């Protein structure tokens, strides 16, 4: 098979349950130009090298017009990009400002201190399953949990959360580079509408928090001044949209993929029940084995770059296939095996370098808590179908539903 058609196959919904053989195929040529234009980078060291390479940009404005056209990465004319899609120095400034109320060095204990609150939310969700013998893990636990958490962190009132799900889903669907140009254009319209609605709502909320601050992140962003000053009102909006989407569309897949993987490896599930300390390394292995973000398709070259013998020209679109790098036998022994306590597990699941996941400590804690509690409290969980139905999205990949039968809920 020529590698040229491989991206189309990766994006093809039929391959959603198991894209890994396609990645193995891809790795035979570490850097290859796809028929649609982008360069696909698939081996561990090449991906990692580019994630640390200052000649790579995350800002779509650096794409040549042809590359932008071919990969459908147009700018939203209404809102400037968030720091996910910006380069230094703007990226660094905004990330520092966003980090101030969220993590070190200014607020190092923020995530740690949420442990009790997070545990309470999980317990509440699992308690709610009493009396049921069939559940959908996604709708019942994996989705509501991180969503509730990110809304609480930001300070979104609980009664508004449902609106959020709709907006977030629409925006996340827009992250998927599938479809004909017309389909993509139509989808982009919906995405832009959803972003506008979400932005309007957040603008109102931020204004409210500015006038009467509470103990949440929006209040901190709106009122606190650090060495970098403050975000502009528009920056506050794009940043909170970013945090909301990131908190919505990724952790859900980590928890769901986690339960699915455990049910496929009953010995490991049993081990986690008796050995909760396994949760730490196990979640790292999940991030390697079934990463919720499969590829990073929004990089651009600022200069000609030679990678593994291939020269990528300036202004080209580059897709960093992190899920493929995570299965690279040159880096991981026995890469297609799920080894819950794998040593030296420097996976690419949270990216690497300057854009490496901002929410990683939170996401780790959420997944560790959820999985430990699920295996402890669900009695005799069984998969109803394997593979389960997947979401359309090939980038933020995960099951849409995970129907399980259970014997009951333990205390």
């Amino acid at each position, binding site marked *: 098979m020529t590698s040229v058609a491989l991206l189309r196959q990766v994006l093809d919904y039929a391959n959603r349950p198991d894209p890994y053989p396609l990645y193995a195929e891809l790795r035979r040529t570490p850097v290859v130009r796809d028929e649609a234009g982008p360069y696909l980078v698939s081996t561990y060291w090449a991906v990692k*090298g580019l994630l*640390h*390479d*200052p*000649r*790579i*940009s995350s800002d779509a404005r650096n794409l040549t017009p042809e590359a932008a056209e071919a990969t459908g990465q147009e700018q939203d004319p209404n809102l400037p990009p968030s720091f996910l899609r910006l*380069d*230094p*120095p703007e990226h*660094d400034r905004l990330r520092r400002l966003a980090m101030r109320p969220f993590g070190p060095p200014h607020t190092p204990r923020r995530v740690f201190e949420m442990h009790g609150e997070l545990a309470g939310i999980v317990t509440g969700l699992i308690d709610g399953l009493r009396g049921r013998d069939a559940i959908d893990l996604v709708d019942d636990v994996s989705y509501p949990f991180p969503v509730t958490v990110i809304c609480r962190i930001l300070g979104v009132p609980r009664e508004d959360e449902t609106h959020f799900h709709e907006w977030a889903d629409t925006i996340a669907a827009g992250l998927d580079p599938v479809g004909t140009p017309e389909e993509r254009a139509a989808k982009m319209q919906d995405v832009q509408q959803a972003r506008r609605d979400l932005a309007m709502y957040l603008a109102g909320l931020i204004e409210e928090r500015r006038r009467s601050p509470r103990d949440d992140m929006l209040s901190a962003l709106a009122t606190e001044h650090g060495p970098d000053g403050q975000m502009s009102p528009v920056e506050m909006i794009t940043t909170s949209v970013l945090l909301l989407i990131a908190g919505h569309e990724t952790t859900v897949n980590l928890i769901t993929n986690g339960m699915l993987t455990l049910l496929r490896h009953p010995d490991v599930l049993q081990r986690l029940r008796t050995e909760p300390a396994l949760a730490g390394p196990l979640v790292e292995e999940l991030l390697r084995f079934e990463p919720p973000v499969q590829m990073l398709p929004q990089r651009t070259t*600022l*200069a*000609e*770059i030679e990678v593994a013998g291939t020269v990528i020209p300036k202004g080209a679109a580059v897709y960093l296939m992190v899920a493929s790098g995570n299965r690279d036998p040159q880096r991981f022994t026995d890469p297609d095996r799920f080894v819950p306590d794998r040593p030296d597990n420097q996976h690419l699941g949270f990216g690497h*370098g*300057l854009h490496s996941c901002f929410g990683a400590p939170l996401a780790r804690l959420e997944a560790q808590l959820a999985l430990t509690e699920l295996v402890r409290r669900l009695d005799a969980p069984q998969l109803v179908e394997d593979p389960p139905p997947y979401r359309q999205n090939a980038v933020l990949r995960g099951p849409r539903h995970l129907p399980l039968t259970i014997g009951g809920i333990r205390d």
Partner: protein
Amino acid sequence: MTIDGYLEAFRREGRIVVVGASLAGLRAAEALRAEGFAGTLTLVGDEPHEPYDRPPLSKQVLLGKVPADHTRLPRVRPVDAQWRLGSAATGLDLAAKRVRLADGDVLDYDRLLITTGVRARPWPQELEAELDGVFVLRTQDDAVQLHHRLAAGPRRVLVIGAGFTGSEIASACRERDVPVTVAERGAAPLVGALGGVVGEVAAELQRAHGVDLRCGVQVTGLEGDSAGRVRTAHFSDGTAVACDVVVVALGATRNTEWLADSGLGAGPRGIACDAGCRAFDVRGIVTDDVFVAGDVARSPHPLFGYQFLSLEHWGNAVAQAEVAAHNMVSASAERRPHLWMPSFWSAQFGVNIKSVGVPPMADQIMVTQGSLAEQRFTAAYGFQGRVIAAVTFDQAKWLDFYERQIERAASFPPEFTTVDRRPEGRQPVAADFPDPSQPSHGPTVTLSGYSPTDRRVSFTPRRA
């Protein structure tokens, strides 16, 4: 006995002596055991303390965040060694394979590892150096005393020498709100290590934090009161400063005096060794039973024209100790070279400074990312058209990339565009290092020429 047989017996029941029981010595001892060395292992250290870590001494310890006696090095694995702490080695007999100790004991060895490191260069006027309130900072005991004085709230501290250690001390003073004057003979802080362009940024940083920074001056004398306490420092520009604490931070001297007549290639610049950590003797012949690691070593590096490098870098001490340990118990075909990419970090005035490569070798510098004025940048150093080093201020994430550039001898100035390139990053400028023959304070990497020995061997041709 065959050589292989010898090695087997040596690994089982040989005698290894390690002189210098600090970072390199401890890590080497642990590595020897990890490599399966089962014989007798003796660690000799002149300090009475168990091995401890030095970098915190000028950082967390001076801030009172960590007590000075709480920086013990974590033990990676049991070393099952005989510890001779508090006893200095005073001599080495290469032929008899014997180390003499200050208390008169002798230790016989089959293989010797020397990790005696460096010590702070003292204030040259001995009487002034003995004044109460005059300190250096190298050891735990130094740190205990200095911290004690800083906590007592001195009226003003004078730091002599604005290298990394001096600058970190000044930073700690400011964080404790203690008034501090820094005197530096060079044109700016850190010039010896990072050059004048970056030195200017360090100067700005110091002044912005309220340091009374005086560059281009020398301290000509320290004056005490009748009780022998330091009171005033005099400068070469005729000015004077009243101070009750003086920290002398004029770099380091190698601890090699005890080897003076041993026949080993040891001198003020360190002990020369090959890439496999084997010491050279004065004739330039490599020994096979004496190994060297850490700050006291100088070894040739292929990336830097095979010049001998002396590195006062924590990471180098660990890596070289591990290579030395491996090579001490391995057959020659299995030995490994110590090809460490020099790298260093420092924390001062709220900035995380990191460097890779050998900045003092450079003739040019270019700010490839960020901006000097914002005190957040990445600068690449060039030597004869190649990238030779890089420094970051609060941008450590980019250092890996530049390390690869150094390894690949990439061309300088870099032709490519990067993110965050500013107008100042379009042209290289002179790196502006001071004349190395006039070191103002210790640069952390010193290029020490091509010759394995410090002293000339007298060359007497044999008559035919």
